[in-house]
């Protein structure tokens, strides 16, 4: 058992953090030049041949930086449905994708092409009209598609389970990145802001909620990395790990942001402070795909019911025992 990152994964995280700090709004082409769009794409298709764990490293940093662009919708969501030739285009930074698997389509403003779930498979949607909707989180626009025709058949609907697992695991680790940055703001403010002649972090009414925020974040991160590893390894626990991670991490991120806002007092409530953006991303993550309570209902069904609900869970791996 080894639950640490490799030196290469740590280096990737450092590179990502430094790059995004210097380039807050990178283009798709720039991300491709860094090799990020092709992380898990095979080397013969121009990718790096790595795994979802490396993609999770990037998604955490992209969440932290509140990146706006089609990375989530292309890499986390649509990639399993793409045939090799289209993957090569993604790795080269020539195209980005999003998938219409619900009424609200993520990253519809920036994604070049749209895939759609229909009948027995996933198809490219051609000739559709796009409408970008006004959203609370301005860094993660969604839209709706109207009309259009199914074009090339991309994949069998069998990939939907993998897409679901990747989507949930990606949202979970992104939530951890959002929460980490909010917590850092909270710690910084509590350490430097003085009232009654002392830094406010001296007061346990301030420090204990921050300790709790840290605790929820670390638990969320453990679940998210477990889910990421399960997805990368195609482990039989991937469906329940991804559901558990998203359910927990989304709520944790919302809570951490709320704590950070409260610790900041008035400034935390202003438009000017970045906390409001982090908070809105956390709320977006909580609402997207499946809410925490919906996912917990699926977990409960897997734990308590003789026949699993129509949740996509494989029943056997839901093991309550340790190890093995």
């Amino acid at each position, binding site marked *: *058992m*080894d*639950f*640490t*990152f*490799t030196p290469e*994964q740590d280096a990737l995280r450092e590179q990502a953090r430094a790059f995004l700090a210097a380039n807050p709004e990178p283009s798709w082409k720039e991300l491709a030049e860094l090799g990020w769009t092709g992380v898990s794409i095979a080397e013969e298709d121009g990718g790096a041949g790595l795994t979802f*764990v490396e993609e999770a490293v990037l998604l955490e940093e992209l969440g932290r930086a509140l990146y706006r662009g089609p990375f989530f919708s292309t890499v986390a969501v649509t990639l399993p449905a793409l045939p090799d030739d289209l993957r090569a285009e993604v790795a080269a930074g020539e195209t980005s994708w999003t998938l219409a698997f619900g009424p609200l389509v993520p990253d519809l403003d920036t994604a070049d092409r749209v895939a759609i779930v229909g009948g027995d498979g996933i198809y490219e949607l051609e000739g559709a009209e796009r409408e970008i909707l006004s959203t609370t989180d301005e860094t993660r626009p969604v839209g709706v598609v109207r009309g259009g025709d199914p074009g090339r058949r991309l994949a069998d609907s069998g990939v939907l389970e993998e897409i679901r697992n990747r989507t949930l695991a990606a949202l979970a680790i992104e939530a951890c990145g959002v929460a980490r940055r909010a917590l850092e703001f909270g*710690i910084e403010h*509590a*350490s430097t802001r003085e009232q009654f002649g*002392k*830094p406010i*972090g*001296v*007061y*346990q009414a301030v*420090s*204990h909620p*921050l*300790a*709790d925020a*840290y*605790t929820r974040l*670390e*638990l*969320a991160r*453990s*679940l998210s*990395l*477990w889910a990421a*590893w399960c997805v990368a390894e195609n482990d039989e626990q991937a469906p329940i*790990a991804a559901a*558990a991670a998203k*359910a*927990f991490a989304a709520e944790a991120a919302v809570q951490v942001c709320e704590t950070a806002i409260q610790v900041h007092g008035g400034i935390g409530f202003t438009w000017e402070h970045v906390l409001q953006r982090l908070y809105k991303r956390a709320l977006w993550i909580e609402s997207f795909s499946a809410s925490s*309570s919906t996912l*917990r*209902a699926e*977990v*409960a069904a897997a*734990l*308590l019911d003789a026949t699993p609900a129509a949740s996509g869970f494989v029943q056997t791996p839901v093991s*309550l*025992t*340790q*190890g*093995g």
Partner: protein
Amino acid sequence: MDLRDTADEAAFRGELRSWIEENLPEELQGHRGGAARFEGEAMRGWSRALHEAGFAGLTWPTEYGGSGASYTHQAIFLEEMARAEAPPHVGVIGLGMAGPTIMAHGSEEQKARYLEPILSADEIWCQGFSEPGAGSDLAAVRTSARQKNGHFVVDGQKVWSSFAHLASFCILLTRSDPESTRHAGLTYLIVDMHAPGVDVRPLTQITGEAEFNEIFFDGVEVPAENLLGEIGGGWQVAMTTLLHERGTLGFALQAALAVQVRKLAALARDRGADPLQRDRIAREWIEVQALRFTNYRALSKLVKTGVPGPEGSISKLVWSEANQRVTKLALELLGPDAALAEENAPYGGYWQHQQLRSRGNTIEAGTSEVLRNIVAERVLGLPKSR
């Protein structure tokens, strides 16, 4: 990153699992914790069996009679013991606290005298740290140790001392310099619990059982060779003890909580649960997984770097609060039957007992308030509150 057991870990786990299956006496399986966990000759026999199989003091160096095993094997051992609902070795304080402290600070004579009987469960140890006026604030201890004619004379009172009624020895934190305050002037002694002037009185707790005791010391003579570390250096020695208290404990706690949640799910299947209760059961299952993988992260870092990761500091805090919620949720599932106790209650009163016992979880071995201070100050680097 590979969350599977290595071949070596899987072999150890498999071997251990079958050993427990073959050797755990039926009457000891499914122990419900509390006072039952250390009473009776059968428990002594079980501890001896663990020792003979090499599972007592797993991480102790071989020169002191241990197995010199890795932290990972220790974690697997704790997981498997909890999973099988096997009671722990009765020498909890000796194995986890007194032994490692003697290894770190003791003389060769002390190591030769005390370590082996801890492993074999021939001698049980208790801890004399807390006092009526020194709980979370350990540096406020007042129990005195005067030097007189080449020995120490101990007077004072200790409290919340588990195993004291069974113990041969006590690791005792005293104030040897009456003029001193706080961390200076403390001295760490090994005290024979059968010496004249030692009086142990059990404390009946919220469950109706007596797991811990008060210890009164009235002019107790302690030989000079029972000094551990330096006179006046007791605080540093005590910190070694507390460091070991928190060591790999997290694995035992998390594995026990996993068993608790498994029983909660069985209870819900047995007696039904409404949608809101199902949501909370799912929450607790998710939380146990979170705790488990957080422990794995901390362990991996410890194995790779020799230093435990900061994640480990939240383990006991999370476990204690989760165990309180889980046991209370079980009572809710029992409905009006929750009011019954012991043999009149479903499952022999298991959940009623567990729920009451769990109130101690957020107090013993570091209160949740102290643990939050530790996270805030040592992990987050916030300014100190005192």
